[in-house]
């Protein structure tokens, strides 16, 4: 992890692959739904990636990693339970269910794609599209010029489009 904090991509990939196996085993022993396991693993990997600056090399790695994994697992289970509670039985009384929220799969793909954007691109898109800030407000908030915000957003959209349209091996 120390090497990863310094930018060593090869060491980081090796570490994440080892973490994947550990977290997969951790999640399998704690959730009954096998289809949730990979989601939890990916959520944990993303959190480790985003919060890697918080790892203190003077402390052991595993407690840090498992603390993140435990919380991501709990968050995920709570989120899934809430989604299940929002399911509305179809009026016809049939077995079909109508979702109040959009289907999960596209959201998951979008979140994965957003995770691969740079911090600035992700922040600009989040503030523009989710928080509803104007370009001027974002430029003040992030200390960028208005044109930089527009360019960052444009590049972010372009990268998102490429990531979302690239063929996937199936998930």
């Amino acid at each position, binding site marked *: 992890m120390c090497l990863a904090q310094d930018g060593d*991509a090869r060491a980081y990939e090796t570490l994440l692959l080892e973490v994947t196996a550990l977290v997969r085993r951790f999640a399998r022993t704690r959730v009954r739904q096998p289809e949730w396991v990979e989601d939890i693993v*990916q959520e944990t990997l993303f959190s480790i990636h985003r919060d890697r600056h*918080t790892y203190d090399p003077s*402390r052991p790695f595993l407690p840090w990693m498992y603390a*993140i994994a435990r919380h991501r697992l709990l968050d995920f289970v709570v989120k899934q339970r809430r989604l299940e509670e929002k399911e509305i039985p179809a009026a016809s009384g049939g077995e079909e269910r109508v979702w109040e929220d959009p289907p999960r799969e596209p959201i998951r793909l979008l979140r994965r794609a957003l*995770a691969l954007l740079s911090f600035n691109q992700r922040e600009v898109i989040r503030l523009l599209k989710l928080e509803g800030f104007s370009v001027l407000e974002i430029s003040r908030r992030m200390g960028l010029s208005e044109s930089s915000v527009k360019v960052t957003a444009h590049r972010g959209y372009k990268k998102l489009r490429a990531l979302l349209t690239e063929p996937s*091996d199936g*998930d």
Partner: protein
Amino acid sequence: METEQFVRSLAATLRPVRRLRPARWRAVLWAVPAVLCVSIGTVLLGPRSDLLSRAANPQFWLQSALLLIVFAASSAIAFRTSVPGSEVAGHVRALPLWGLLVWGFVLAAGAWAWESRGEAAAGGSGWICVSRIALLGVVPAVSALLMLRRAAALRPGWTGSIALLSAASLAVVGTQMVCARDDPWHIFVWHFLPAAACGLAGVLLGRRFLVTSRSGL
């Protein structure tokens, strides 16, 4: 996207990061300027004229010591809980709340003793004390949240609450040195309750402010 592909994508976007300093250092880096800031604010607001004679009162010292313990404990705990894997046990996390409760108990006991002596509580509003607490606490509170935002609190509501409680308790120490009123009811309603309210507001602010920084999605 398969997990292994996701791992490769994360590794491909890897950038060097600046490591967060250890929690104890960040706590000290926050606490020392916060104490300085509140001290300067207290001097600017004008300490009560009888502060020296008041300092001889054990009740005054007991309350100030309790508040400083709440301040120190909550700042240390807030910064520790902002780093995954360094979180403290539940009973340790609750220490600042116990400190606050003990302060409330001391005030209640003081109010009982005050009334049994037949002394009437001075009436009047204490909004000026609330504004003093807000004035003295705003910089430490905002700076604590900004510093915690750099970390990755796994319990953002709790971390926000403890951080604001820390800032509020320090601000109340300053306010106690400015406010000329000693009746325990005044201190309970206009010093203790606002500090407790800051702790509650910290839950909401933490969930809003400390999660937003981490979500990124």
